[in-house]
């Protein structure tokens, strides 16, 4: 704390020695205005001033808590009566003094709820202009803002109405009438909103003797006309006001600089002025750097890396670093994720920035929404709820439940009452959640705190959070911290008359208009603060990194203007004027942010277009600070700043056969020191070294060979490593159809239309399909086309074998497979048929089909299949049929005549031989190259494949 060793510069001494009367202190950031005020406050008390009659008024709750802490340390006594107040606190104290019973103060969300309630109860006929909008939340919010601005500027509804009439604005008389009604309703209940509190205090201040001997006011650049009136009304014999006119940044919250600008002229004529100029905050001007990254993800990575570098290399405490974004939004999530990835501890002190959307609070928010949702809303909520941590079902299982509920003629929301088809653990989870929700819903209308308590105590995710926090890992603790913060928000919401769950959610959704700034706890975790530009006011850091320093974001000129703008009562500003005003606002805000840094500022922005660097709109403010844009430093591995990076670097060095031995040994040493466990090294782990090749006995099937034929890389990733996706519904249908055909042919299922349709009905599972529509369409396809085609072409004839397994040796390799059907030919010999349930469009000719070739070879080679020789025909039967009605079966057939038999067999042998040689070579080389000519449409591995842009960064193409 700076206070105990406070050594004032000459201008500050003047402030301390100020004998009384009115004084205005101005000065840029860091010149010690706040410190001088606090010191003056402390000395006044030490010199015997009555604590009750000395007030220090500050701009925010955060500044108040800060000042209190500093002063208590400075004064070294416990002073419960210390009058360190915000303007609202001052107003409340004043009303208590003057009126005895102070009014109940509505918070912003409560004010919104009140306005909305009153608007909904209005008679539409009395609102010719805005009658259609009374039910809109957006309109209620606009009206709420107008009501606040009106009171802050000390206008009455009548004045509003007159001014609007004079300015020729239509519809405002409706608003003015409503404003009068609103104020009347509040008055009757002895309630005020924030703005009204100040206005009422301003009226009360002047009635009676001065309350304070000394009044000290900080951050006067962001204040309201009502606050000015309070000061004038208080008429303190000694008034010291500090302000930085370049730091006026809260105009969007209704504050204005007017009271400051006219302080020494109209408001307090004859006030003395002192200008502070000596900068105390930093020894030298902070350095400013400007980085440009090629993409937002790289921008965020550069931010994370720089934070880590500052912490590791320069020894800056985490809590002395800040990342600043212009405003809240989805992009903040990406930034946070990048910080998490780089294991940079971070806090998001502003409430609303992530509270409602953080993964750890998500289940509670969802559950709360469920409690107050109506039928149709619940239909939409049920799936997120089932798959969230509230219950934790898989998406497939939850969709299955919902579908089952629908099939039973119930609404989707009632899926919660269904447990059929779930495994016991899942069913228990659903039942438990149902009971918890039922219990919590008893409180929903009355108290959000009680409802939340039930959820917290009974939902299993709470237990998991607590358990996880007990383990190591900052990440897990942070999840719990977030929920605790959320719980505090719940508690706070219920303090001033619990509005129930609906009211709380409304406030939560209101976002920016919702809960205000929370106290920023310096004693909090040692972590980097992620703040909005406005959230930085009054804070101080070693280094501040501004992310998203691009035109359009910072300065951001696109903020929507209020629908009912008091400024338009005078005259409507031209577009150029409003752009200029906005730019000034933004520039001041930017300088406030930059002024937070003692040592360094880094501005980072990224290119929005992949292909034209010069298009990037970098913020104009960088140039004004003299910063020159340069590319953001990359992420070099040579100087690791985290154990993770070090591990990665050293592992690469260790694995690099071309590196010097000493380097590799040093890397090994380093890895050992880090305690890195090689058995956890995915992909780098040695395969069990048996001294023998990967496959001792090669067993190949057609499907493996066909993948190999398509692409080596696909083959190794899919077949050897088994990384492919699980088969989709087409495969499921294929299996079903093949199974039914087999049963029919084997006589296990009666060959009749009824029994086949019955079997389909019995086995069909809607859940296998992405939607009911697809399921129904597919079922029709199976029933009306596939089985019809099969029936007419194969159903009536006898087969010799179905689903016939084979296995034969070929060039030292075992080839295995199953032949769908072998049937007799009238002309002698047999015919091999493979049923296909897919599309015939791109099918190969039968004589070129590797699959049929292998089957043909199998019958000729395998002893168990001897009885089916000679094969005289092979065919692929596409039972789905032609795409054109009447969808007749498409058969690709090849007659193996006496003459062509040998030639066919030779061709098949050659193809197979080449593929097997390829397979063997791959096993020895273990280098797998992607095939540029491959058919990649169905490939699961494009994101890993160097010939596709998506995968280029994963593997580089190796030469053999």
């Amino acid at each position, binding site marked *: 704390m700076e206070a105990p060793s406070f050594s004032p510069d000459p201008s500050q001494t003047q402030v301390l020695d100020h004998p009384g009367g009115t004084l205005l202190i101005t000065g840029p950031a860091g010149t010690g205005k706040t410190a001088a005020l606090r010191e003056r406050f402390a000395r006044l008390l030490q010199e015997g001033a009555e604590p009750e009659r000395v007030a220090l008024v500050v701009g925010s709750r955060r500044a108040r808590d800060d000042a209190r802490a500093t002063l208590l340390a400075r004064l070294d006594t416990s002073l419960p009566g210390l009058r360190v107040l915000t303007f609202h606190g001052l107003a409340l104290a004043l009303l208590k003094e003057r009126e005895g019973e102070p009014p109940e103060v509505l918070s912003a969300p409560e004010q919104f709820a009140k306005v909305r309630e009153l608007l909904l109860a209005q008679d539409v006929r009395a609102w010719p202009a805005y009658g259609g*909008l009374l039910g*809109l*939340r*957006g309109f209620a919010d*606009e009206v709420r803002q107008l009501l606040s601005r009106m009171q802050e500027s000390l206008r009455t509804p009548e004045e509003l109405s007159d001014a609007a009439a004079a300015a020729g604005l239509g519809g405002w008389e409706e608003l003015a009438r409503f404003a009068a009604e609103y104020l009347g309703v509040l008055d009757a209940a002895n309630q005020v909103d924030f703005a009204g509190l100040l206005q009422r205090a301003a009226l009360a201040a002047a009635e009676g003797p001065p309350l304070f001997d000394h009044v000290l006011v900080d951050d006067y650049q962001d204040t309201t006309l009502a606050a000015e009136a309070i000061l004038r009304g208080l008429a303190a014999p000694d008034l010291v006001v500090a302000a930085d006119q370049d730091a006026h940044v809260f105009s969007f919250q209704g504050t204005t600089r007017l009271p400051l600008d006219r302080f020494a002229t109209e408001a307090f004529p004859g006030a003395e002025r002192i200008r502070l100029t000596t900068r105390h905050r930093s020894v030298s001007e902070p350095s400013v750097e400007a980085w440009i990254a*090629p*993409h*937002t*993800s790289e921008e965020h*990575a550069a931010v994370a890396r720089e934070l880590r570098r500052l912490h590791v290399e320069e020894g800056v405490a985490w809590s002395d670093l800040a990342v600043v974004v212009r405003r809240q939004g989805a992009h903040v999530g990406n930034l946070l*994720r990048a910080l998490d990835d780089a294991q940079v501890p971070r806090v998001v002190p502003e409430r609303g920035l992530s509270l409602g959307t953080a*993964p750890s609070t998500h289940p509670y928010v969802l559950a709360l929404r469920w409690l107050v949702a109506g039928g149709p809303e619940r239909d*939409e909520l049920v799936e997120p709820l089932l798959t969230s*941590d509230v219950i934790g079902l898989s998406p497939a299982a939850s969709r299955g439940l919902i579908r089952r509920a629908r099939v039973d003629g119930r609404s989707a929301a009632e899926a919660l009452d269904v447990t059929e088809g779930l495994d016991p653990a899942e069913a228990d989870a659903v039942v438990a959640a149902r009971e918890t929700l039922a219990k919590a819903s008893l409180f929903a209308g009355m108290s959000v705190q009680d409802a939340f308590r039930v959820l917290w105590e009974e939902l299993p995710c709470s237990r*998991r959070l607590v358990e*996880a926090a007990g383990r190591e890992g900052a990440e897990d603790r942070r999840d719990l911290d977030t929920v605790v913060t959320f719980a505090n928000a719940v508690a706070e919401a219920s303090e001033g008359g619990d509005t129930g769950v609906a009211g709380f959610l409304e406030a939560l959704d209101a976002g920016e208009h919702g809960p205000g700034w929370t106290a920023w706890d310096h004693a909090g975790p040692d972590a980097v603060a992620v703040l909005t530009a406005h959230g930085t006011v009054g804070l101080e850091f070693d280094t501040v990194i501004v992310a998203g320093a691009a035109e359009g974001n910072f300065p951001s000129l*696109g903020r*929507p203007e209020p629908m009912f703008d008091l400024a338009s009562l005078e005259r*409507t500003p*031209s577009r*150029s004027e409003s*752009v*200029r*005003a906005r*730019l*000034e606002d933004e520039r001041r805000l930017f300088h406030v942010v930059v002024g937070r840094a003692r040592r360094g500022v880094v501005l980072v922005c990224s290119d*929005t277009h*992949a*292909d034209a660097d010069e*298009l990037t*709109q970098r913020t104009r403010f960088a140039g004004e600070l003299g910063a020159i844009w340069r590319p953001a430093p990359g*992420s070099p*591995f040579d100087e690791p700043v985290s154990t*993770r990076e070090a591990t*990665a670097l050293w592992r*690469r060095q260790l*694995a*690099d056969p071309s590196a010097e031995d000493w380097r590799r040994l040093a890397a090994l040493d380093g890895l050992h020191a880090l305690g890195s466990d090689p058995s956890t*090294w*995915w*992909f*780098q782990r*040695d395969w069990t070294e048996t001294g023998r090749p990967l496959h001792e006995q090669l067993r190949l099937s057609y499907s493996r060979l066909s993948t190999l034929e398509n692409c080596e890389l696909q083959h*190794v990733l899919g077949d050897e490593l088994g990384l492919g996706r699980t088969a989709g519904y087409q495969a499921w249908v294929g299996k079903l159809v093949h199974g039914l055909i087999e049963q029919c042919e084997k006589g296990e299922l009666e060959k009749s239309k009824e029994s086949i349709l019955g079997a389909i009905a019995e086995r069909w599972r809607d859940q296998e399909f*992405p*939607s*009911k*529509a*697809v399921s*129904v369409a597919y079922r029709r396809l199976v029933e009306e086309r596939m089985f019809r085609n099969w029936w007419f072409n194969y159903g009536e004839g006898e087969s010799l074998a179905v689903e016939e397994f084979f296995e034969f040796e070929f060039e030292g390799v075992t080839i295995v497979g199953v032949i769908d059907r072998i049937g007799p030919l009238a002309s002698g010999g047999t015919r091999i048929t493979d049923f296909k349930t897919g599309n015939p469009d791109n099918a190969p000719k039968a004589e070129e089909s590797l699959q049929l070739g292998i089957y043909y070879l199998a019958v000729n080679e395998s002893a168990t299949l001897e009885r089916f020789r000679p094969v005289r025909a092979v065919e692929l039967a596409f039972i789905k049929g032609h795409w054109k009605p009447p969808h007749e079966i498409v058969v690709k057939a090849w007659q193996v005549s006496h003459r062509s038999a040998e030639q066919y067999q030779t061709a098949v042998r050659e193809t197979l031989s080449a593929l097997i040689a390829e397979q063997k070579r791959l096993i020895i080389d273990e280098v797998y*190259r992607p095939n*540029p000519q491959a058919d990649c449409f169905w490939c699961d591995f494009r994101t890993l494949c160097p*010939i596709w*842009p*998506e995968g280029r*960064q*994963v*593997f580089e*193409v*190796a030469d053999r």
Partner: protein
Amino acid sequence: MSIVRPSLVPPEIFAAMGAAPTDEQWRAISWPLEPCVLIAGAGSGKTSVMAARVVYLALAALGGIDGVDPEQGVLPGNVLCLTFTNKATDNLRLRVRRALSTLELAEGEEPEVLNYHGFAASLLERYGVLAGFEPGARVLTQAQRSELCSSVLDRMTFEHAAATWQPSLVSKILELDEQPQNHRVRPVQIQAHVAARLELLKNARSNRVYEAAEERLELAEACARYRELKRELGVIDFGDQIDRAIEIAERYPQIVADHRARFRAVLLDEYQDTNVAQADLMHALFGDGHPVTAVGDPDQNIYAWRGASLYNLLEFPERFPRSEGSPAARLPLYTNFRSGARILAAADTIIGPIPDAQRPDPDKELRPDPANGEGEVAVARHMDEWTEARSIAERVVALRATGAAWSPRVRARGPRPEGVGGARQDPARPSVPRRVQGPRARRPARDARIEADARVHDRGRRRGRALPFRRSARAARRGRGPVRPGADQAHRLPR
């Protein structure tokens, strides 16, 4: 009206253009404050002309143009420029900012440069409440649209439309949502139209027509349900934004007046690519003789597949008449500053056989700028796309050897641009530094995937399940993390 280029072009205009404007260009730059349309051929420097017009209007407003009343000028702060893509927006914004930097203007004198969608979105943001739309409605991304549409498929089944492959069914429905919206047609209108003709179609010679009609009825029904769902959830998509913006503009004259007061001059770029809805919005806001300058090339109408209507450009003079009622002026910009004479001749030869009646603008002719020389046109035919790609690469390398910069662009049009243009890379190809532009360019795809991955990762983490493979792959892509193998051992399984 004839406009003579002054012997001394203001130096600021010169600076904005980077050269002295031609007579043709000067005419467009200095056209009085009234609606006009520039028919600009390829390479005619239309972006420069637009930037120069902003500068000209500013100069005029400051009294810097002899013989022009300052009332006939507009300060940049009161100018609105709309373009079609984000990239064009940034390009124009940068050009205008550079051009204006030569003028001594007060801070804040910057034109509003947006794309058509962004403009509609801001209008909705600002005035949506008036028309009864809650602010802050979430705008669906393409993926979210698909997701939402999929949930329609759980509530209805299809008799006629092919429904066995969900992605194509979804895209059919979404297309039927979007395309008619671009043309301001509603699903009920489609249903009514088709239903009224169903009987008639029964007698058509081919069944297919009838089947297609039945299919369309079903899809329109799905589409209506999708819209219903959007409304219930309070979400909108890009099409809805424009739709609502038009509704606001048509219903509230006050808002129109407000826009005309804020934007005293309007410049519309790439007008040939606007769709009916966008043109309707412009008309509702800035019709009736407001000074709108539209710029477009009837031969570069390349977004017809997503609803762009060439008629917007061709009918501009009648649709945006002068205040006194006569059609707006039509100003040609035909000189091509990009290509050699032979290249233009080749283009002419290709267009030549098209009869005048079928050409959007038969008068249009591209005039070469002598400074560009002759140019060279070569035609080659290859066995397949890989040899084609290789030969292009070789040619680029050869050009490079003659001293050309690495800037020739390979334009690929056809069913598989990635094969030729180079997204899918043949490792055997000569190494040419390249950048893939257009919708399949590298970064968006990668970004989307990283996001998707991150989501999976998050979900896994929340459930306490590790997803080692994807997670590692993701880390590797970013160049850190544990799995990135050395360059020399790419996808080699370690021993």
